[in-house]
């Protein structure tokens, strides 16, 4: 007989839920019947390189930072849930000649891919559109399985992109990460660690940048004031479209830093190489 710490036991059970999610993903109904699913479960310190690269990219992008901060905090508290990586080679076409990829036939598409396969911010391409649709269904089944176990889960591009670049699931052109957990309620929405990451002003600036019309004064004059402060009519502020050299430079340097880390982790760059 034994008495278990309930929360610790439940945390351990998340690994079993993760396995169940992979079973569900494998049973997903697809359109092409040609998706060869790859999956991997990552736990604890094996997530560190992914989190590190994600945090590096996050230095210049809120999207990656949002996830990186959450994962870092969970890792620090020893509450990092098991993370399922799903991947597939979405380059091989369905052979339907449908045209959705931009080529008239799958043959023309294949010819193009032979010399033009490349990588974007987190996926390889080109991609057969129907394979991408099917891969979505596969991942959806995994999410639905987690939901039926009442486990927190959130399918993440950010984790998948870093994992792909770090060489997980070799041969996959797209990888997505699905944390199964942590224990708790709505933790991927209400992120404790995010509370202090951005200031109130930064948060309001993000809102303004995402929807400037919401804070726009009378636009009939042609150059409307953007209401960015209480007495917005005094020393008014305006919207301007311009090139941002400083941001671009920061972005380039930041990506270079992230790629250097990726090369070190994957062994492409030795310790002594600069």
């Amino acid at each position: 007989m034994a008495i278990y710490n309930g929360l610790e036991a439940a945390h351990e059970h998340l690994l079993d839920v993760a396995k169940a999610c992979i079973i569900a993903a494998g049973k997903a109904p697809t359109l092409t019947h040609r998706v060869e699913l790859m999956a991997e479960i990552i736990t604890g310190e094996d997530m560190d390189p992914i989190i590190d690269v994600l945090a590096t990219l996050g230095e210049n992008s809120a999207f990656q930072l949002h996830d990186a901060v959450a994962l870092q905090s969970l890792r620090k508290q020893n509450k990092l849930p098991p993370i399922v990586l799903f991947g597939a080679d979405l380059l091989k076409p369905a052979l339907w000649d449908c045209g959705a990829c931009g080529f008239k036939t799958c043959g023309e598409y294949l010819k193009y891919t032979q010399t033009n396969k490349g990588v974007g911010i987190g996926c390889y391409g080109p991609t057969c559109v129907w394979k991408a649709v099917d891969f979505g269904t596969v991942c959806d089944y995994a999410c639905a399985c987690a939901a039926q176990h009442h486990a927190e889960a959130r399918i993440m591009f950010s984790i998948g992109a870093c994992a792909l670049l770090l060489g997980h699931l070799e041969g996959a052109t797209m990888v997505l990460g699905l944390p199964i957990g942590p224990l708790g309620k709505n933790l991927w929405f209400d992120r404790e660690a995010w509370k202090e990451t951005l200031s109130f002003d930064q948060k309001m600036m993000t809102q303004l940048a995402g929807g400037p019309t919401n804070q726009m004064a009378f636009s009939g004059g042609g150059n409307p004031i953007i209401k960015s402060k209480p007495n917005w009519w005094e020393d008014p502020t305006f919207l301007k479209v311009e090139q941002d050299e400083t941001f671009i430079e920061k972005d380039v340097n930041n990506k270079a830093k992230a790629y250097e880390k990726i090369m070190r982790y994957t062994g492409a760059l030795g310790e002594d190489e600069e």
Partner: protein
Amino acid sequence: MARIHIDEFPPYSPSDQAKKENVLVVAKLMVNAALTAPLTGGVPGHEAEIVYGQKEIEQVAREMERLAHKEVPKRLKKPFLYEAVMARESDAIVFLGNKRAHETPMDVGCGLCGGEPDCSFVYNRVNHFNGLIDATDRSRETAIKGPVCVIRAHDLGYVIGSAMWIAGNHFVDAKSCYSVGLAGRNLDICMNSEIVVGILIAAASKNPYADIPPNYHLTNMAKQIDAVRKITTITRQIPNHPYHTFDPEKKTEAGKKKEE
């Protein structure tokens, strides 16, 4: 109080119609699930339409058959014809369309469409003004007008998956089909979408979407039932007899014994 008799045969009889009404409830729940599926950034971008009724489903099936013979590549001809049969055996069809992939890309440089860290692959091949895609020219040279934003299209997979999951949880058989979606889209079902998928659904003792014999468009049950109607009508005209006054069985040994 009402008595609702339910039986799947004959098709479209009142008893079958009562069953179809149940399936329609599931179709509606599937749409709910589809619209709440997890999406890239949680951005809304899908539409749904339910096709229900014998004539309405027949129209879709006929367009699938037209596509099979006239438009799709040879290797899809039989699958399209077989799935048209499945459509006729379905109680309802749920159509799910993605409104964004062809018109409002994610603009994130993911790399899926062209393997480049920007969205140039798509924008270099579509008609647009400063990144605003003009989708008003709806003429097509291929079944689907491409290229489309692949990560947007990827979202459609989740939408289909959640709908299928609900169907399965209600023990209603379901099959998502390219053929049904393409036919539906050509008939202006989910007309704001370039990429549409049709989910056939049916409550039947035998899953109508599995165990498909060769040349199914010619050998399916509807054809066999029709063959029975055709042949039986002829056959009965041979062993006919004036049954009011004469029973041919009486002349046999067994018949005589029965009489005793």
